[in-house]
């Protein structure tokens, strides 16, 4: 639950750093909490495939009828269930700290719910690419962060849109991005796993 603790820590520290002006906090809440969610998700990523890689389970799976794509999808789901989903559940409470009104809080919740799977999906690609590198954990954020930027943009945009009374086009775009990421990531991750397993 390091991710949850990290998420909560950021949400608590930012107001301390920025000041208690609730109007200001409400405007930055979407962005801050989304960035915090992404960074919290990064924490567990480099270990996504590590254990199975090191003890040989991945090799065994590669030889079995079970496809690496399925394993990648399973890992993405597991990562989301242990990181993205708990973060989403905690978010309404943290939204309180930022003085977010109800509609914006709902937008934040929904955006995290549909957006964090894409963070897990994109993260899995990065984790599988850097699997066999020593200190691959350093490159992982560099690879993943630009690729998840649409999720942050649309997710925070959804909150801002709810605050300003604009439509929810952002959520639709976020859903499309998330869906595409979850569909495509298993293939890219499996390809990356294969090259790291092969000799």
């Amino acid at each position: 639950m390091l991710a949850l603790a990290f998420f909560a820590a950021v949400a608590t520290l930012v107001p301390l750093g920025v000041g208690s002006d609730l109007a200001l906090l409400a405007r930055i809440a979407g962005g801050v909490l989304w960035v915090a969610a992404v960074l919290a998700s990064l924490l567990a990523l480099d270990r996504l495939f590590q254990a199975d890689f090191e003890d040989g389970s991945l090799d065994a799976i590669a030889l079995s009828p079970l496809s690496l794509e399925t394993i990648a999808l399973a890992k993405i789901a597991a990562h989301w269930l242990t990181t993205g989903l708990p973060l989403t559940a905690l978010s309404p409470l943290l939204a309180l700290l930022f003085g977010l009104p109800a509609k914006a809080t709902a937008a934040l919740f929904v955006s995290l719910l549909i957006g964090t799977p894409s963070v897990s999906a994109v993260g899995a690609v990065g984790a599988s690419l850097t699997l066999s590198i020593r200190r691959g954990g350093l490159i992982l954020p560099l690879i993943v962060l630009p690729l998840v930027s649409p999720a942050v943009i649309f997710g925070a945009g959804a909150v801002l849109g709810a605050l300003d009374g604009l439509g929810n086009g952002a959520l639709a775009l976020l859903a499309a991005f998330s869906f595409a990421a979850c569909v495509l990531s298993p293939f890219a991750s499996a390809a990356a796993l294969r090259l790291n397993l092969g000799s």
Partner: protein
Amino acid sequence: MIRYANPARFMDLSGAILPWLAAAAAALLAAGLYLGLFVAPGDYQQGDTVRIMFVHVPAAWTAMMAYALMAAASLVGLVWRHPLADVAAKTAAPLGALFTALGLVTGSLWGRPMWGAWWVWDGRLTSFLLLLFLYLGYIALWNAFEEETRAARAAAILALVGAVNLPVIEFSVQWWTTLHQGESIVRKGGPLISAVFLWPLFAMALGYTLLFFSLWMLRMRTEILDRRARSLMLAGET
């Protein structure tokens, strides 16, 4: 054993073409500089800062073209395992990163007099910043693997994932800039119908492109020679 799919032919061809390519690039750049600095007038709206466009836009175009070429080479390398494709992708990246950085710096210098700030979260600049990170991640990935073929495959996957994601990133950034339509949007370059601006722009753009191809070709030749040297050293050790 590393199989060279006819690098000898590439070396012969590139050796013949390269001097002409470089000469053409130099000529176009000289012409573009002359037209841009001496012939083109100041813009009625932006004054002489419009001349920055002649070094900013070509850098940006070249940076994006370089990524497209890198992604295409990565695809060829992944699907057909052509080793020259891996060399092509690997050598294009630092050049692409350089042109991206140039686009950022010149864009910033253009933005300061225009919008009053050294950095503005303009759609173009923001997309470019993310493109630069994509390039840096790609280069870092190449350098992180000890085995050359493994590095090539990993980098190729990253390049392709990035290529798919790049239009999405650009779209999301464009969408994001329209979300905060508080300030008036000054369209970069203003009304540029006048040919007196287009000629230097195209000359510089073509010059930058040919310069990119020259440097790319030169770096590919260097990489091929390096690989030959490495395999000779390995053979000597056995």
